[in-house]
């Protein structure tokens, strides 16, 4: 890291975006260092596939570069703008039929529940202690409906406020909270059953 780059690390996101508009790749690198991991983990939890996530992360930052002139700091923070790009790219990619993801059906879970009997009263961690816990959690998130998955990842993992998510996804806060409750119910049941 040379002196110029070291100085630029102190720049705000908005200042760096001005430099990106002037085709400064060092500014893009600093923004990548700040937010690349966050966007990557958002996409990874959405897709549960490292290869796809890296491709989509690359596409997100490439789009930041080419669409840098459309960023307006008055309309919102850079982080929101970046995640909006990431969300849209991921949504578009995941709607392509080739992935063939199977999202969870609530009725399906309810039927599983009835069969489980006693198991329901046990804590989730005990149920999952013999299985690969992380893999189970990843799969549970993967099986959520895309809208529910999105709100859980942005809220819980990215620590964003509901108001920020509302701005990014252009969805009312009330709807997002309803989706979160719904996601919570589905996740609880999926983790308890732990059968995919």
């Amino acid at each position, binding site marked *: 890291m040379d002196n110029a780059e070291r100085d630029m690390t102190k720049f705000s996101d908005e200042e760096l975006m001005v430099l990106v508009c002037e*085709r400064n790749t060092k500014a893009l690198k600093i923004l990548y260092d700040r937010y690349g991991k966050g966007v990557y983990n958002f996409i990874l939890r959405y897709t549960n596939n490292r290869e796809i996530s*890296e491709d989509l992360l*690359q596409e997100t930052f490439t789009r930041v570069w080419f669409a840098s002139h459309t960023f307006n700091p008055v309309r919102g923070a850079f982080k929101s703008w970046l995640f909006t790009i990431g969300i849209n790219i991921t949504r578009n990619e995941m709607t392509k039929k080739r992935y063939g993801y199977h999202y969870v059906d609530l009725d399906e879970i309810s039927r599983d529940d009835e069969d489980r009997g006693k198991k329901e009263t046990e804590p*989730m961690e005990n149920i999952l202690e013999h299985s690969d816990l992380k893999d189970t959690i990843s799969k549970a998130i993967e099986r959520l409906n895309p809208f529910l998955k999105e709100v859980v990842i942005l809220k819980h993992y990215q620590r964003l406020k509901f108001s920020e998510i509302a701005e990014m996804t252009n969805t009312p806060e009330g709807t997002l909270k309803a989706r979160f409750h719904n996601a919570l119910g589905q996740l*609880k049941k999926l983790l308890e059953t732990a059968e995919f």
Partner: protein
Amino acid sequence: MYCENKNHLLDLYFLEGNEHEHSEMREHVANCESCREYLGTLKETMSMLDKLEDKEPSPGLFDNILAEVSVSIPKPVKQKTGIQVIPILQIAFGEIFLFSLIYFLKIQITLMPAFKAVQNHWFVQSLGSVGIAVLIVLTAGTFITLSIAPVLLFESKERKSFS
């Protein structure tokens, strides 16, 4: 069946909203069994999700991004400031050069012995008048160009600093 305060419960859990709302909600939770149950589920599920650690993207990924954007980095375009100072000076020096050339030729021709024989011919007279007119125009042009150049230079700098 959960209480209708579930949305406020989310605000309390994620510490969104204001402290007044939180204290009201804490009081409510103390007296509402369904909210306590919901809060327990929320905490348990969220703590399960916490077990997923963040992962790092491949170290060379930014190089791929760089390769993709570098292909189409346009050459930096110089911002046009409207008036270019250098061409104005070139015009002024051109005018001075032409003036000097014509004046030099005029002196050389008048000094030639053969000139005396034809100096009263109408063609030579008219040529002389045209030459004098050109010299007057060039002198005026040079004077005007050189006098406005500093003003234009100043304006051009001002525009650059505002843009």
